[in-house]
């Protein structure tokens, strides 16, 4: 009995000793990572403490102890605010439209690129298609506004030349067109970039499959349908599921830059809502409540996506 206890104690001391010995041996590695661990704490984890603001009647001049606590009042206000439902409608609408178009177009484009036999032409086409990805949303918004403008905008000119319309459409002033404009702009910007992943997946398909299909006399369209598409199915499913996690985190840059007062009812998304109704109106507590809602729903969606992913592939993405 005694021997075992002593042994056990020695074991524990040994573990501790080993920890510190390893720590010393890893001292350079710790020195190279601890500053960043600290940095991550300050800039990623500490802001979560700011969530307390949502449960207070926060006044910047007062210290934490002096703030007045109000419980869930701000959340009640939020869920009774008509603007909130409008914002959710806009967010989800643009999110779904973005997912559908943002998947279909790059997949089609990747398949088309893959069918091009001239390597030089293919490379030029790819380089050109990556360009908008690297350009800022400020520039893209400027280009979109220019192309859609009523005086000499390319789109209006083209539509008039084709005889589809008789006078220019005021694209940027029509709320009901805003979601479509955002979706098309987004596809225009990211289409080429998003082909990278699909092209990599297509490159992984064994060439013997195509050879066999050719021998069987399958046309190139049938080869795409029966070999290429099934070959990238897994990639598509993974990316689709991952996009569920970002359903309400669609950013705000495009909406901020493309929107204006005339289309506000269609352009305001969650982050803009918190920027305008929280920060710019100095309703900090209310704005933080919006941020919390955003984060919590995103996490829940992420767990849902991960669960779905596990059931399908028996693997985890988190």
């Amino acid at each position, binding site marked *: 009995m005694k021997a075992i206890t002593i042994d056990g104690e020695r074991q524990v001391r040994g573990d501790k000793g080993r920890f510190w010995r390893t720590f010393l041996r*890893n001292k350079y590695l710790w020195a*190279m*990572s601890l500053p960043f661990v600290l940095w991550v704490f300050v800039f990623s984890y*500490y802001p979560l403490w700011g969530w307390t603001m949502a449960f207070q009647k926060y006044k910047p001049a007062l210290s934490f102890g002096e703030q007045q606590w109000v419980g869930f009042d701000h959340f009640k206000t939020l869920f009774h605010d008509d603007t909130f439902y409008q914002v959710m409608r806009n967010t989800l609408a643009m999110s779904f439209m973005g997912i559908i178009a943002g998947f279909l177009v790059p997949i089609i484009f990747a398949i088309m690129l893959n069918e*091009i036999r001239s390597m030089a032409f293919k490379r030029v086409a790819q380089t050109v298609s990556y360009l908008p990805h690297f350009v800022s949303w*400020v520039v893209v918004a400027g280009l979109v506004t220019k192309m859609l403008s009523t005086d000499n905008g*390319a789109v209006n000119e083209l539509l008039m030349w084709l005889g589809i319309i008789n006078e220019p459409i005021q694209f940027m002033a029509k709320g009901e067109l805003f979601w479509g404009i955002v979706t098309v702009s987004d596809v225009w910007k990211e289409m080429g970039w998003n082909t990278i992943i699909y092209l990599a997946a297509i490159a992984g398909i064994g060439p013997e499959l195509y050879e066999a299909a050719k021998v069987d006399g399958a046309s*190139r369209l049938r080869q795409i349908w029966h070999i290429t598409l099934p070959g990238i199915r897994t990639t598509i499913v993974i990316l689709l599921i991952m996009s569920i996690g970002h359903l309400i985190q669609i950013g705000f840059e495009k909406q901020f830059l493309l929107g204006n007062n005339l289309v506000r009812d269609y352009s305001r998304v969650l982050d803009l809502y918190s920027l305008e109704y929280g920060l710019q109106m100095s309703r900090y507590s209310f704005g*933080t409540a919006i941020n919390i809602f955003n984060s919590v729903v995103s996490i829940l969606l992420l767990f849902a996506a991960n669960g779905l992913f596990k059931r399908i592939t028996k693997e985890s993405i*988190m």
Partner: protein
Amino acid sequence: MSTKKTLMGTPMSDRIFNIVVYAFVIGVMIVTLYPFLNVLALSFNDSIDSVRGGITIFPRDFTLKNYELIFSFSSLLTGFKISVLRTVAGTIVGLISASMLAYTLSRPDFQGRRFVSVYLALTMYVSGGLIPFYFLIKDLHMMNTFAVYIIPGLVSAFNVFIIRSFMDTIPYALQESAKLDGANDFTIYWRIILPMSKPALATIALFLAVGQWNSWFDTYLYNGSSESLTTLQFELMKVLQSTTSGNNADIHNPNLTQVMSTVSPESVKMAITIVVTLPILLVYPFLQRYFVKGMTLGAVKG
């Protein structure tokens, strides 16, 4: 090859297929390039002549006046200087930080490896949101400072993981032999791993540089009232927004905007757009090989 196709009996449908494919891809290229070429042409065209319309991809009344004009605005010159500064500083500092952290995470014998990985990965999903972050910056006294462009975005988990998955492919035996020669972990990172990670570093450097060059919202939020710290993107944003029926932009000094309403707003906008876009155009095609590989690696591993 062609005789084989004829034997198969599908040369006609094949030809149609090819036409459709090329037409689609060329169509995409035109739609992608036209806006840029149109803006380029307009930026070199006389501003009064531009109002007549009809300019597509060639200037009709060539002039350099628009560019001379925008380089006479001091706010744009400051913006250009700050944008270059933040891009250079942010890229160098960000690259060193991300690669250093990535190296520690790539070491199988590092005892903090698991904890730090998870701790870092969580930041990709958890965020305090706009307003708590705004107050953090305020409490750290980083409003109206240049540091706000560099420090808050120092480490991105995504970049660290891309570099780490590249470093994982470097044979560990190299490091062990260096260790036998008495090199410490920092020396190994600096002398052996960094030079071997060039493809991954090139990718991340591009992402960091483009991110820095393109960002405008941090200026808008934290430095908008500080004239000596505004960036080119922010100035362009103000100019673009000033004419789209009174947007959020006019809360800050409307200096340039006022000047513009008397001169030639459209042409000036076009010239600034080109100045903002050009540096990117000159860099990214040469790094294409690297970032395509980097993206694929990152997507497969994480």
